[in-house]
């Protein structure tokens, strides 16, 4: 745990882009970047590129000083840039300044600022930070140790007033492990055992504390209809409502109807109050003061979703569950993206007709008994062929680092490589409403940039350096510490 604390200190200069702050040009933490008395970095003044490893060593060796903050531009020169939005650039240059990408292009065409720290990335592959569209990061440490888990509130199936942001553990040991492999942003979702388990958060995997790391609170809400939400375990005597899908659907419908009524009551109250105020002004009559309805957190939480202001993440596996779930969502005009649909191969044309993105998989889900071995492996390709926008998710906490493996594997079953890369970068950024800031190497976006020794989607590829908001993240975690300790 000491390490996590150290890391927080190390990163105390790292500012997070929050959805609201993002539009502001001024970095709200910029005052931390230039502290009085901070020593100049040792590389200061170098104008010729240094080898990457040497530079990284120099960066890491100065981590304990406040000079770590990006107080000057960094240029990565000579690598292969996978921009995602405008192809690959061999022998490219990317410049990061003030936490943003300020230039991207061929080495011959980009002017590197004279004060920039130039890092030679020849032979490296450089790509945007990866985005995992469903994780439980910050909600668990050790799966089997219940005291470390804040995954789902099982006391009721309808829990929209749960906010993962309020449980998110910024100092989790799991977060550095994930970002070491280039995952810089993620959706944090509650476990799927409730129909409405609570609301997601969209995080950045670096920051001084939870406030900085939680880029968007309550960015979306899962609606799970996979059958796993039934309380039917342990025989008839132990069942409780809702033990069937009918029960789940009825309960859910009631929750949304209650929320609609609630909204109407408050609207009525607000109208009366306004009328009353007017009457008061006009007649000085104090008797018309209306009584406020009782507050109900559950219904309140549902209103932005009923109004289509926020996204529902609609999870189903089988064709029948999928269609029931979609009917329910349509009944209340919810704005939704689909999740999982691992066993919905027979109705992929129907899925395409819905014109919504799909968080697909995990593709490691076992096929049904009678299905071919690759029925789920090939799902991303099948969806892509039908024009469906897909994203991948690890659906994990400890294995978030393996997110890109899944995308690579899907290409072996027909998904074009570029689409696989998009599914863990720009597509995810679009679905989560942050495409203006994340998901590609484009000027103006947050400088979440990964430097690796090869193809980002191959299991063998080693990530050499991760930049989050233009800052070089220490490439250490609890696991590298153990490795180094026992390598002595």
């Amino acid at each position, binding site marked *: 745990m000491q390490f996590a604390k150290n890391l927080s200190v190390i990163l105390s200069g790292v500012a997070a882009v929050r959805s609201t702050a993002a539009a502001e040009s001024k970095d709200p933490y910029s005052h931390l970047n230039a502290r009085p008395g901070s020593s100049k970095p040792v590389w200061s003044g170098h104008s010729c590129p240094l080898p990457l490893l040497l530079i990284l060593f120099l960066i890491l060796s100065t981590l304990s000083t406040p000079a770590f903050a990006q107080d000057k531009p960094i240029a990565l020169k000579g690598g292969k840039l996978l921009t995602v939005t405008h192809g690959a650039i061999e022998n490219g240059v990317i410049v990061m300044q003030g936490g943003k990408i300020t230039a991207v292009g061929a080495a011959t065409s980009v002017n590197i600022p004279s004060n920039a720290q130039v890092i030679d990335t020849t032979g490296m592959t450089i790509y945007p930070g990866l985005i995992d569209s469903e994780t439980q990061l910050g909600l668990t*440490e*050790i*799966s*089997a*140790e219940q005291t470390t888990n804040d995954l789902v509130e099982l006391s009721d199936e309808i829990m929209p007033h749960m906010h993962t942001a309020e449980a998110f553990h910024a100092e989790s040991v*799991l977060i550095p492990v994930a970002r070491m492999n280039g995952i810089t942003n993620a959706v944090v979702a509650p476990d799927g055992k409730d129909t409405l388990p609570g609301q997601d958060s969209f995080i950045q995997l670096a920051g001084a504390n939870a406030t900085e790391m939680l880029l968007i609170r309550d960015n979306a809400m899962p609606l799970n209809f996979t059958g796993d939400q039934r309380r039917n375990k342990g025989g008839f005597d132990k069942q409780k409502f809702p033990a069937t899908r009918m029960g789940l659907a009825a309960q859910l419908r009631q929750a949304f109807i209650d929320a609609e009524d609630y909204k109407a009551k408050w609207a009525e109250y607000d109208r009366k109050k306004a009328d009353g105020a007017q009457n008061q002004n006009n007649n000085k009559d104090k008797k018309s003061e209306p009584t406020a309805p009782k507050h109900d957190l559950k219904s309140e939480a549902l209103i932005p979703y009923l109004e289509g202001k926020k996204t529902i993440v609609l999870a189903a596996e089988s064709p029948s569950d999928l269609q029931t779930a979609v009917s329910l969502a349509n009944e209340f005009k919810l704005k939704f993206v689909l999740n999982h649909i691992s066993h919905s191969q027979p109705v992929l044309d129907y899925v395409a007709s819905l014109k919504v993105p799909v968080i697909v998989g995990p593709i*490691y889900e*076992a*096929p049904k*008994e*009678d299905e*071919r*071995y*690759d029925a789920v492996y090939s799902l991303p390709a099948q969806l892509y062929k039908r024009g469906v926008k897909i994203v991948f998710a690890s659906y994990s*906490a*400890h*294995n978030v*680092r*393996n997110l*890109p*493996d899944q995308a*690579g*594997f899907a*290409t*072996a*079953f027909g998904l074009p490589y570029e689409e696989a890369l998009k599914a863990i970068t720009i597509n995810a950024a679009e679905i989560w409403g942050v495409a203006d800031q994340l998901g590609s190497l484009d000027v103006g976006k947050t400088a979440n940039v990964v430097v690796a020794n090869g193809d980002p*989607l*191959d*299991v*063998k*590829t*080693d990530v050499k350096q991760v930049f989050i908001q233009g800052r070089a993240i220490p490439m250490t975690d609890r*696991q*590298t510490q*153990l*490795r180094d300790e*026992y*390598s002595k």
Partner: protein
Amino acid sequence: MPLMSARKLAIHCAFLAMTLAFAYGQSAAAAHHEVVIKNATVMTVTHGNIKNGSIYIKDGKIAAVGEAVNAPASATVIDAGGKYLTPGIVDSHSHIALDDDVNEATSPITPQMMMKDAFDYQDKAIYRALAGGVTTSLLLHGSANMIGGQAVVIKHKYGAARDEMLFPNAPRSIKFASGENPKRVYGSRDQLPSTRMGNFAVQREALVQAQDYMREWDNYNEKVKRNRDDKDATPPKHDLKLEALADVLRGKLMVQIHCYRADEMLTEIAMAKEFGYNLRAFHHALEAYKIADQLAANNIGIATFSDWWGYKQEAWDAIPWNAVMAMRKGVRVAIKSDSGDYDRRLNQEAAKTMRYGGATEEEALKMITLNAAWIVGVDDRVGSIDIGKDADLVIWDGYPLSSYGVPEKVLIDGEVYFDRTLPGLGTTHYKEGE
């Protein structure tokens, strides 16, 4: 469950029909059983790669391997089209095809359980692993008990008869386990063992009983040997449980131990020395990197995960460099699945060792072939492309040690059992619904 039996009956009928349907095709091949795979990049595991290599297979065995092989013109030719060819993958830790009969968790000592008795040869999990290039698996008892049952080694000949799927004359293995799992299972019932002290006390007590049992039998045998008509010589009662444990002490069973923590591995080594038996391998062994010297010195292998961690307290110190760090100290390392999911892509799991610690291609491949075969005790028969070994082979679409490698054809004993290019399931010996 009458429904189930009806379904199983239907499968049996389908199986009969399939056997008949294949009779013709089989007889043609059976006449000579000779196959040549040509134009492959052969990854032998033991003697490097052969570009444009060929393999000549006779009677299910590798008869020749090289840039050119002498084979009769009558041999069936498979053109690998320049693709990679590896030995079949060996999964040294699996619980598939047991219809959830993995743990006889009614007593912490159940060495008389035979996994073979629960082997469900029709389980589709066998097929799905086959499609991932697995040709041999060690099906182990679970880890609820300190001493579980005796493993069965299978070949993934999906669609073949049950007994054809059993690895012929494979050595016997027994599963031990310690740590959190037995603690949790019995501790939650307020039974012994609920602690690690309890774990090892239970194990030692069982082994002491086995020693007594052995002594009784030895005494009896000695008496009978001295005097066939010795009236005092009454045979002790046969006890399956103690007989199995006695076989551990006699060195007739290879001991495979589920163990996570370094301290527990050291305790298991000490206990093995106390009772005079050898340990074949620690399974999971996520802290092997902390005591690799001792493992190497005692010739104990490990069957570990590539990068699983954090799912329980005893997996908290897991690091993805474990496999390579242990290997560099001289430990025989296998990457295993312990899962009906990961056994479908063990090649990717092995490839991770190239990233974490810099294993060479051959070292990585060895962890899912030859080293795994050694743990199972069948390394003289499978695990590499060498003359005389079983022709268990995989032709890969794409480079196998990557995210992209997918088996195109899988051969076991020289016969194709899976072919990705075929419609339906891609199986050659099993047809759905026939």
